[in-house]
């Protein structure tokens, strides 16, 4: 094999006394795609930042050698390092919203890089910007060049970020979770773009990701990181066919796959009673304009949705961001006012309830949120958080009984009862999500709206939470309205699927039917965009 482009040897990074990256070594070869895979907190982003010297000053970095084409990066003074960052090594961040300057046009932001690194004149750099925008396949580059980041969609912003990274004509492009913040169909486009650019320019791509399926389609070689150490380095084919390390095996096993719904035994309800019945549900936001704030138009977030959910079953609501699925979920719980429609829960019309009757009905239908970090009051103890619903709806239950119930709930979500006296910030994401589930269970609901409960979690934790939810369903016969964008998770947990697109349900049916034989063109597009592990 030819000489490596980037050689990292014995790299360690420590914050205070905590080692987040522990003596790792790897090489990136020219024109290859190297993927660094690991769960959040495993130190993969820190590794990339430390190579670029972008870590905060309280980080202690030590390494036996970091070489870029025989040039020792460790001995270069900071002032010369600017000629490496952006020029020799390009970088794409995870969140395109926050990595672009909102007060500069995208043309200016790309031109800035060109002018810094190539001493180009204004006219030259303008031409170069135009070429780059064409290269990243942004439609109508002449117009876009003068636009500001907020005028672009998320996918287009990420394309601009790629254009900025490419502007320096780097030998190595580091992409740190480049598609995590994007929808699945756009993710596929961005990945295809990266691949084609790599083929054109012959640069090396160092991809950092938590998503094994994505990596399997992109990478030539894979390194798996766990708690600051690289536990396995392998070719992609070798990794997916015969991974060695137990942690790699665990990651592979935890991977939800769309195929898993094949031949799923459809639960037959003992008595087919429909628990939830939604008819023509609408949530419109008025658009007000003019001096008197007249309503000139409506944003139809949810536009006439109807579905049924049977007791003890799971209905997955699938769609991309902005399709109105979260609004629908919150609208059903009356957290967002709805415009029209009827919601029947156990044949009680929820939309007609007000005041105390509504408060009492709330125990029947609960919600779990996407971000377990924002879903709990940071100033309350876990015990107080869980018992809040009991206190509100059953004020007659005594203190001791309530505490017993809290302990029992914690046991149900597989947490020790002692955690009741701790604060939410002391827990990891998965543990917090368990606490949120316990809080929802506290009032003995019949239906739980799960609003992307696993998308903020790591793969292995995600699998645990799904297993827990399934388990609870079996024991207590709770129904779930499972809102998600992740089709693999849908395959794992759902009995039925409803696909939402621009506020409307476009396709609805059994999970196997919708995922494996999609009818509607949008569903087909969605299913095709999901990266599937596919190694020859």
């Amino acid at each position: 094999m030819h000489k490596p482009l980037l050689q990292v040897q014995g790299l360690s990074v420590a914050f205070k006394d905590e080692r987040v990256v522990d003596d790792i070594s790897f090489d990136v070869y020219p024109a290859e795609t190297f993927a660094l895979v690991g769960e959040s907190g495993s130190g993969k982003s820190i590794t990339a930042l430390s190579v670029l010297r972008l870590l905060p000053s309280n980080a202690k970095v030590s390494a036996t050698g970091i070489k870029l084409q025989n040039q020792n990066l460790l001995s270069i003074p900071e002032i010369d390092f600017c000629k490496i960052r952006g020029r020799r090594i390009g970088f794409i961040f995870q969140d395109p919203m926050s990595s672009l300057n909102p007060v500069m046009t995208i043309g200016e932001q790309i031109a800035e890089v060109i002018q810094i690194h190539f001493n180009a004149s204004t006219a030259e750099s303008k031409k170069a910007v135009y070429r780059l925008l064409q290269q990243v396949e942004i439609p109508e580059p002449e117009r876009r060049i003068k636009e500001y980041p907020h005028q672009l969609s998320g996918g287009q912003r990420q394309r601009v970020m790629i254009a900025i990274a490419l502007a320096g004509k780097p030998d190595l492009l580091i992409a740190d979770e480049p598609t995590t913040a994007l929808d699945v169909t756009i993710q596929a486009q961005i990945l295809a773009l990266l691949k084609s650019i790599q083929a054109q320019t012959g640069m090396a791509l160092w991809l950092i990701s938590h998503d094994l399926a994505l990596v399997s389609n992109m990478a030539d070689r894979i390194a798996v990181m766990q708690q600051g150490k690289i536990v396995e380095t392998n070719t992609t084919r070798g990794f997916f066919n015969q991974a060695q390390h137990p942690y790699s095996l665990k990651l592979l096993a935890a991977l939800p796959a769309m195929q898993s719904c094949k031949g799923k035994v459809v639960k037959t309800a003992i008595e087919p009673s429909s628990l939830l019945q939604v008819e023509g549900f609408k949530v419109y936001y008025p658009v007000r304009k003019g001096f008197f704030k007249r309503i000139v138009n409506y944003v139809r977030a949810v536009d006439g949705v109807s579905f049924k959910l049977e007791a003890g079953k799971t209905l997955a609501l699938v769609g991309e961001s902005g399709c109105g699925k979260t609004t629908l979920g919150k609208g059903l719980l009356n957290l967002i006012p709805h415009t029209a429609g009827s919601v029947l829960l156990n044949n009680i019309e929820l939309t007609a309830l007000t005041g105390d009757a509504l408060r009492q009905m709330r125990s029947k239908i609960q919600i779990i949120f996407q971000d377990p970090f924002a879903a709990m009051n940071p100033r309350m103890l876990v015990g107080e958080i869980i018992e809040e619903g009991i206190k509100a709806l059953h004020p007659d239950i005594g203190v001791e009984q309530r505490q017993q119930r809290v302990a029992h709930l914690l046991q149900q979500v597989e947490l020790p009862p002692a955690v009741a006296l701790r604060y939410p910030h002391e827990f990891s994401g998965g543990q917090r999500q368990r606490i949120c589930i316990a809080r929802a269970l506290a009032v003995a609901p019949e239906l739980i709206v799960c609003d992307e409960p696993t998308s903020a979690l790591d793969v292995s934790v995600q699998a645990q939470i799904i297993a827990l939810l399934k388990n609870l369903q079996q024991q207590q016969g709770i129904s779930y309205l499972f809102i998600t964008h992740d089709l693999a998770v849908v395959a794992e947990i759902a009995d039925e699927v409803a696909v939402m697109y621009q506020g409307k349900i476009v396709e609805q049916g059994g999970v196997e039917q919708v995922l494996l034989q999609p009818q509607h063109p949008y569903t087909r597009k969605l299913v095709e965009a999901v990266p599937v592990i596919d190694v020859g």
Partner: protein
Amino acid sequence: MIVLWTDALIFLLVATLFIFSVLLRNKAHLQRPLQKIACSKTAMISLLVLVFFVLIGLLDSVHFKSNENRTHEIISVLDYWAKPLRNNTEKTYSAPFSAYLYSKETLALPDGSQQWGFPRLKFGGSHLQNPDAELLSDVLEKALSGFCKGVGLVILWVVLLACIFKGRDKNLFKNTTLKAVLAVFLLLFSISYMLVDLSSYYHVLGTDKVGEDVFYQAIKSIRTGLVIGSLTTMIMLPLAITFGIMAGFFRGWVDDIIQYIYTTLNSIPGVLLIAASILMVQVYMANHAEDFNSLIVRSDMRLLFLCLILGVTSWTGLCRMLRAETLKLREMEYVQAAQALGVKRTVILLRHILPNVMHIVLISVVLDFSALVLAEAVLSYINIGVDPTTYSWGNMINGARLEMARDPVVWWSLLASFVFMFSLVLAANLFADSVRNAFDPRRTEEAG
């Protein structure tokens, strides 16, 4: 014993704080932040300084009718103890530790001739025979002996306490925070002891235009500063918190009304309102002269009204901040979760919103406390602050301002008020910083 209006409010405040601390003593989740405060050196040292100021302020808030000189004037416990300071007034300015007046006079010499020179002070350094030769050594000697007495007393107490507590906790004195606090206490106590000792022979910080001791003025001003800082905040807080949270949480017409009120209030110049209300109080007191027969009662009434009007004009800033924060918080998922659990709106306000805006309240209370102590100085400058007869740092600065052009300059009033005001405000700021660090769960890792 006589209870003035501000006295009553101060003791009410102290009592409320005491009751709260007793009620919250056994709350498990409050123990950790409190322990963290107790372990922080900065927090404990600034608390010590604050307590020192507060104690002086409290001593100065217990008033009674004295029967000395049969004047029946109202004095405080502090006045009673500082009797020599209060009564030993000179003719006019004199520099700190000086035995002579600051301005020249025609002196009658023992031989009958007359001379143009600096006369001796009536009290300051009057025990000296030949001040030019003896002054420095005498001051040093008295300072050293006073300091040593102070140190001796503190050590005696520490040894006594150590004997009492030794059986309970062996490692008590290995605690570095305790050591630091003891060291600062030793310093603070000894210096105060030394100053008190010295001030019975000299004017430690000089005298002002009418010959009053500046050290006495500075100490008396502590109460005024504390009253303005704390009472104003207490008046302002309920308004700001209730309105701010309600506007942010309920939105709609509630928000509209509250916003209307504070925008209107904000567009009236504060100085105008303050001046108007102070004038009104004066007119009221002039019309009811029989109820305000003593100078101190009158100035107290004016102080109270100043606090009231400052409170009414200064709640808008905090209110606006709280409204914005509440707007953010009400969209948080834990608030929605509580709504989904059927928790009542008032309960959500108290349990989820209020505790999560408390850090803003805490920060702005301390900043306002400092700002109010400073605002008093500005208001006194245009004569709409506290009564000219009330001792306050603002009045001291105002008085000193007039002498800044004098040559040689009269600097001690300015310096004294600056040092006292600075140490109070700094201690309050540092303490609040530590409290915020300890009570904000998101900052626990940094605070260490």
